[in-house]
């Protein structure tokens, strides 16, 4: 770490070096000083989500809190006033951040506060139970030369877990004050207030020395950035490290200084990047985590009672490559049993076959055909593509029981805290295909609705990752309703379901791997805080299932009605026949019965609509055996639905969207063809 800088008393800062927002707060602070006539302290709280920052904030400020949007953003900032030993203090609670290298808007705002508002003391609030995971950010704050006090919060919970921390040793190693608190109980707050009033850096220790390539690049970059706007607040070393992490915002502000040379900075960063096997951001993260593990091991002691360890052991098992794989297989099997066997088998059998097939549809067919003498008009309601016999039957008779069971299972998984562990588990697979664990969020959301998941791809750090995730969502991630229906139609044979899972999984990995080699760009790192495991709460599961069903029904019923009307009109005008006869040869060539062509056409309206069409054919005995498996694979990989396609255009541009759809259409049938021929060649008959 470079020498700790004392804050210049009257620094002429016009704008935030990070976000370029005008510096309004300094003026406001000066105004307050005039009113109180005493020197004031500004304190900023930083830290990851879920570390009890809000508890520390409220313990320091009481109830005098102002909530406002950070200028130019929708991010809420909490400000509170307090008096410590007759000294006025302003406390700012920043949004959660995992690193000084900002990815999300909240992290950018938190960093902007550190740079723009120039707090006199920065409280890095840490969950004492997770010291090792949180120390990397402490290192970054110290490297930045910020006036840090480490607040080890939740010490009561750490004690309950048998965790002891030598705060004196930690303070000596870090070179900054360390205070233990249990803010929700008010413990340690008096000591913290005193530490704030007495603040001074203990030493100028350098927390981490990185490998030679990084240190050489830092040495080359430091003189180039020492006069830049961010250097007025954070150390040149920290700016150099952020530049090596390819932080665009810092790069922009670092090249704004007088006499700065952006091309030389870029050349040094590029040279460092090319000389390393891994991205510099990854190398830095690994080095910081290693140093954190070493330091945590030297200051922590743990005596954990047996009964408390089960949750932790289970959590670790969920993230371990072997046991995590077994647990994932068990979760998928449970999902298949509940959604596929019970939802799509028992419940759909009851609703579609008995209630709609024997009661509702015959009643409306008899009534409307008698009431409406013109067949074309009665067909609109009860014909092959009728609103009642197709739209409502598919929506209520087939999709509703399937998505209901899926949403129940998904809500239970979600409420248990399993999803973030799944993200950690599949991070390795995702790395192999050029993505990181952050991609698990849109991928998991894609299992709900691919359209919205495509919007969420914007949380990916690089353009390359956004394009790959968009492609994989459009190709190999079935939405909830489609997944449920496919579980349902393949529940006749476990072998069929496993083959479908294997083929779609292989396509996901293969296409992702190929795309990561074809699409240029850099890989990004993945940091994530894992919340605790817990038993799903019945009220939460019911509430989430109800909310999702309510939304789904509001959306799906009007859509299915409109789609039925469009199909009826297309059928009446003969357009549907032309479209289907165009698709028939392709469908038949890959070993699927010609009748399934209709399902593929309507699948473009909505994937689940198409899958429901396949379900209908299966129920009628027209689709079975190998053809059923091939149909399910092709339908899963088939072109995205119209809503997803529109969002792809909006998010990725029409060229990328058309290129993705243009690739998927023939590819889906090609995979179907390959599977059909492979099954025939191997003599497999399912």
């Amino acid at each position, binding site marked *: 770490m470079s020498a700790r800088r004392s804050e210049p008393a009257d620094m002429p800062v016009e704008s935030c070096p990070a976000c370029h927002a005008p510096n309004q707060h300094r003026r406001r602070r000066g105004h307050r000083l005039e009113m109180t006539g005493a020197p004031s302290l500004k304190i900023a709280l930083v830290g990851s989500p879920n570390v009890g920052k809000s508890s520390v904030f409220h313990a320091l400020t009481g109830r005098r809190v102002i909530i406002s949007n950070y200028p130019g953003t929708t991010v809420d900032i909490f400000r509170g006033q307090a008096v410590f030993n007759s000294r006025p203090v302003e406390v700012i609670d920043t949004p959660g951040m995992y690193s000084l290298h900002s990815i*999300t808007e909240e992290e950018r705002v938190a960093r902007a506060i550190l740079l723009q508002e120039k707090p006199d003391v920065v409280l890095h609030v840490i969950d004492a139970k997770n010291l090792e995971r949180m120390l990397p950010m402490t290192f970054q704050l110290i490297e930045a030369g910020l006036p840090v006090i480490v607040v080890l919060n939740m010490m009561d919970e750490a004690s309950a877990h048998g965790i002891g921390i030598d705060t004196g040793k930690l303070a000596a190693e870090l070179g900054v004050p360390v205070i233990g608190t249990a803010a929700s109980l008010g413990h340690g707050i008096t000591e913290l207030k005193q530490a704030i009033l007495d603040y001074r850096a203990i030493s100028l220790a350098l927390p981490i020395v990185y490998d030679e390539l990084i240190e050489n690049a830092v040495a080359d970059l430091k003189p180039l950035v020492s006069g830049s706007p961010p250097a007025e607040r954070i150390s040149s070393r920290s700016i150099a490290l952020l530049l090596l992490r390819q932080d665009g915002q810092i790069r922009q502000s670092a090249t704004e200084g007088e006499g700065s040379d952006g091309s030389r900075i870029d050349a040094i960063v590029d040279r460092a990047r090319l000389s390393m096997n891994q991205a510099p951001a990854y190398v830095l993260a690994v080095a910081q985590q290693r140093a954190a593990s070493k330091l945590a091991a030297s200051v922590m002691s743990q005596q954990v009672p047996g009964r408390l360890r089960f949750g932790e052991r289970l959590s670790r098992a969920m993230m371990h490559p072997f046991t995590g794989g077994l647990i994932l297989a068990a979760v998928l099997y449970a999902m298949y049993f509940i959604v596929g066997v019970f939802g799509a088998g028992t419940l759909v059998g009851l609703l579609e076959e008995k209630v709609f097939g024997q009661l509702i549809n015959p009643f409306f067919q008899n009534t409307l055909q008698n009431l409406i003498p013109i067949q074309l008009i009665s067909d609109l309601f009860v014909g092959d593509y009728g609103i009642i016999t197709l739209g409502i039957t598919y929506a209520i008779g087939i999709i509703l029981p399937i998505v209901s069971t899926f949403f129940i299972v998904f809500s239970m998984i979600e409420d248990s805290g399993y999803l*973030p562990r799944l993200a950690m588990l599949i991070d390795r697979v995702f790395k192999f295909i050029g993505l990181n664990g952050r991609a698990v969020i*849109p991928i998991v959301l894609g299992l709900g609705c691919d359209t919205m998941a495509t919007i*969420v791809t914007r949380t990916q750090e690089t353009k390359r990752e956004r394009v790959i995730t968009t492609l994989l969502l459009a190709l190999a991630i079935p939405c909830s309703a489609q997944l449920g229906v496919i579980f349902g139609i393949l529940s006749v044979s476990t072998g069929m379901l496993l083959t479908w899972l294997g083929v779609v999984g292989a396509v996901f990995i293969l296409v992702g791997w190929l795309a990561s080699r074809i699409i240029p760009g850099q890989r990004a790192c993945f940091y*994530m805080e894992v919340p605790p495991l817990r038993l799903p709460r019945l009220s939460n599961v019911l509430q989430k299932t109800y909310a999702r069903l309510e939304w789904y029904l509001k959306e799906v019923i009007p859509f299915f009605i409109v789609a039925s009307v469009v199909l009826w009109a297309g059928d009446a005008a003969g357009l549907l026949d032309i479209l289907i006869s165009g698709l028939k040869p392709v469908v038949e060539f890959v070993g699927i019965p010609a009748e399934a062509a209709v399902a593929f056409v309507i699948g473009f309206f909505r994937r689940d609509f198409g899958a429901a069409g396949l379900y209908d054919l299966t129920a009628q005995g027209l689709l079975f055996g190998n053809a059923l498996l091939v149909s399910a694979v092709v339908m899963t990989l088939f072109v995205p639905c119209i809503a997803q396609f529109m969002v792809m255009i909006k998010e990725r541009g029409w060229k990328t969207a058309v290129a993705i759809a243009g690739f998927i259409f023939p590819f889906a049938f090609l995979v179907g063809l390959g599977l059909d021929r492979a099954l025939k060649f191997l003599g497999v008959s399912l």
Partner: protein
Amino acid sequence: MNDASADRIKCPFCGFEFDAASGTAYCGSCPMGKSCRLVRCPNCAYETPAEPKLFAAIKKLRRKR
């Protein structure tokens, strides 16, 4: 996602706590934005349903008792 309540929501994915009203950042670009009651975590963008009106009403009723 109109109508989101002002209640605090805990993201089931990353554990970040946020106001339902601040979970609407992506709604403008979503074709289904007007009809759904889902909110997105501002920290990780994970989507979760806002508390349904029915459940909010039940809670209110129980509090009154």
